[in-house]
């Protein structure tokens, strides 16, 4: 495996920086079930990091550990060189980590614009009363937030559905709105849980394009879970492979592709007995 302790420049000219998030010996149990068993890996600044593995391997649990939704029984999460104390998900979000969900979690009755505006919640300091009266700081804040949101709308090319209730949108567009909401939070680290599940080829291509553009344009670090191997191999700089809660591979797409344990996990192994 390539030594990746130093920052380096990828083939397509992006700079990958220092370790941003370091997961050390994470173990997560639900009662007697070990969802994650002693896993360590890191995510570096500016990279696109994929987490792959068969169903039930513990990928989403891993993402939930990063986002602070699950608290691992063992192990440490280091963020920007500091050990992260136990945190609530909203505190994690304030540190600059945003996510999308495997099952779309948008407000169906609200418009696309309002949904994306909720991504700016952490940047709203004025209180409920001030917002109701809509004066001074509250008004300024909303204007600023709206400006940021409009840039995201422009970036993801969803101007035409700005005022459409999310419930009326097709699946592929809902996924894009979720990404928009996550981007509106100006994240340093973006967690994408199966951003392309259930999409057709064209939608996948669009989404891949957007993920690359987000990474390129805003320098956002991205960790994603994805089943489509073609997409994973094309997009990501490094891949972690999980199976039954254990890490069975970690490295560049090429390393992983040629890793016997990974091949066995995906294709199955013959049992001699």
């Amino acid at each position, binding site marked *: 495996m390539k030594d990746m302790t130093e920052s380096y420049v990828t083939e397509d000219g992006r700079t990958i920086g220092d370790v941003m998030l370091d997961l050390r010996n994470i173990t997560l149990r639900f009662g007697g079930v070990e969802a994650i068993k002693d896993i360590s890996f890191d995510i570096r600044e500016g990279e696109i990091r994929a987490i792959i593995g068969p169903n039930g391997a513990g990928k989403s649990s891993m993402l939930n550990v990063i986002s602070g939704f699950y608290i691992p029984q063992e192990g440490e999460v280091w963020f920007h060189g500091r050990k992260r104390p136990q945190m609530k998900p909203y505190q994690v979000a304030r540190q600059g980590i945003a996510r999308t969900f495997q099952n779309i979690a948008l407000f169906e009755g609200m418009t696309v614009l309002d949904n994306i505006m909720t991504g700016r919640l952490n940047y709203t300091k004025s209180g409920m009363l001030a917002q109701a009266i809509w004066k001074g700081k509250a008004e300024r804040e909303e204007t600023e937030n709206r400006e940021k949101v409009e840039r995201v709308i422009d970036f993801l090319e969803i101007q035409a559905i700005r005022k459409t209730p999310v419930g009326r949108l097709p699946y592929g567009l809902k996924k894009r709105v979720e990404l928009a909401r996550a981007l509106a939070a100006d994240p340093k680290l973006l967690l994408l849980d199966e951003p392309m599940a259930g999409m057709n080829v*064209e939608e996948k291509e669009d989404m891949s394009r957007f993920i690359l553009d987000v990474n390129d344009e805003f320098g956002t670090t991205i960790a994603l879970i994805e089943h489509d191997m073609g997409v994973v191999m094309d997009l990501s700089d490094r891949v972690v492979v999980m199976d039954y809660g254990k890490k069975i591979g970690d490295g560049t797409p090429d390393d992983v592709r040629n890793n016997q344990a990974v091949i066995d996990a995906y294709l199955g192994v013959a049992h001699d007995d």
Partner: protein
Amino acid sequence: MSAGPVETGVASLPALLARNARTMGAKTAYREKEYGIWQTWSWADAAVQVADLAKGLLTLGVAEGDLVAISGRNRPALYWAMLATQSVGAVPVPLYQDAAAEEIAYALDHCGAKFAIVGDQEQVDKIADVRDQLPGLRHIVYLDGRGLRKYDHSDLTSYAEVQAAGRAAGNEAELDRRTAALTYDHTCVMLYTSGTTSRPKGVVLSNRNVIETAKNSCDFDSLKSDEEILAYLPMAWVGDFIFSMGQALWSGFCVNCPESADTMQHDLREIGPSYFFAPPQVFERQLTQVMIRMEDASPLKQRMFHHYMDVAKRVGPKLLDGEAVSLKDRIAYRLGNYFVYAPLKDTLGLGRVKVGYTAGEAIGPELFSFYRSLGINLKQLYGQTEATVFITQQPNGQVRSDTVGVASPGVELKISDSGEVFYRSPGVFVEYFNNPDSTADTKDADGWVATGDAGFIEETSGHLRIIDRVKDVGKMADGSMFAPKYVENKLKFYPDILEAVVFGAGRDRCTAFINIDLTAVGNWAERNNIAYSSYQELSQNQQVLDTIQSHVETVNASIAQDEMLANCQIHRFLVLHKELDADDGEMTRTRKVRRGVIAEKFDDLITALYSDAPTIYTETEVTYEDGRKGRIKATLDIRDAKVLTPMTVAAE
């Protein structure tokens, strides 16, 4: 009519821009919706933007007479790019932004463009794909840098940087010298024709062509500086160039650019243009959407809508034409306006339209009268790139769906012995670029231009009527007249039918391909609980075929009444399993059918139409938007339609 620069006072579009900045500098000239807000620029702002870019182009080394390709969606910055190009004495060549890479390559190679100013990464990529075939292309300027960060920037610069370079180090004196040197006979723009039949040809238009035409057409409809237009049609199309550049600069009115192609309808409503232009397809799509939404409305609303639409059909056109209308009808129309027409027009974004034009294709009488009856002054015009748009247009109060109006100001018309329409006007193009043979074929020494259309001037009204393309008007095996477009247009007037292609030249009878309109038929299927999984499946649904058959037979009955064309009735037809598409080369970018390509590609289907086979199995290659190819397979039903002889009609 031979107004020279002495009379108009300006010899070029940059001179017009300078005039506007001087005489109405603070007036809004351009708007573009960006980040959810309409951003505005006054004429004075525009003049600064253009000057900065022009000086920047000088630093890139653009020389007088160079050709500069422009490609992208309608944006103020690209209109300024054309003006900046002209300011430095170069010639803008707007290209269709959705053209495939090879079409772009052809145009760039043919005109020998040294520079390109484009909208975004998509356009840069298309040029990059064919870059090795274009040794002459020196530099590309792009507007939206998204996704371009990693590209080699040795001959790629952003628009803003070029402007900044112009501001910092531009040679003002040289720019002034070049702009001042422009005369009425300098080339204003080069536009590629859509190429219905052959390779696109570059039509060279002079400042004289454009400015005279803009002046005449603004006078004709009394267009003033307070008009608002929405620029949403391709910049490469001569119409957009005249409306958004020629007329806008001449009258000083405001050009509004939509946020994206998908938001056009929404932006149209927000702007509420006073002068509006659309091909029939746009009006058709709007009407289809209105009808679909009305079907989902409450019974009370439906009744109100239908009641007042009947009133409108009876009274509206008369009111528009200034004919006598009884007081009772006037009151009913007023009420209808309050309850139905005004809200509907507002929803369509046509509430403020003073003058609306449709052209490009014939418009269905029903469609036409729908808009007229709402009180929208929709008119027809007939034109082509070679005429700088205008050949004929309908004056207010003399509007009909079956004619294209009288000669535009300054235009002379004549009909040749073969029935072809010829015209001569100040707008007649200079030449086809690097193609003297074609120029000579089209334009004679006296300046008369052949339109390629067969038509006649109606004696009673003096209006021109167009039958079909001269080369398409053919003979059938028995020598009777074959006018496919005439029949196709009648078919296309049904909302269910998107496209039709009629065959019959040199044959004993006519047959047709039909494309269903997925929006209209899909909605019908939904309401009638008809399940379908694809366009292909819906197209072969028996009930759909029944409906189409009844349309074909109604059209046959109407054609049978015309003795000259009675033989053009359709004997057999099939509904195609795919939409005819410009990406597959079956249509032009302006959505005109390419008969030759279709006849070749669907050869097996045509053979089947002229046999007795009830079905035909076929495989067709399709090109996806990203250029990849695939094949679709289908078994198509072929139906026989009832045909009337002129005799039976007479007997009835």
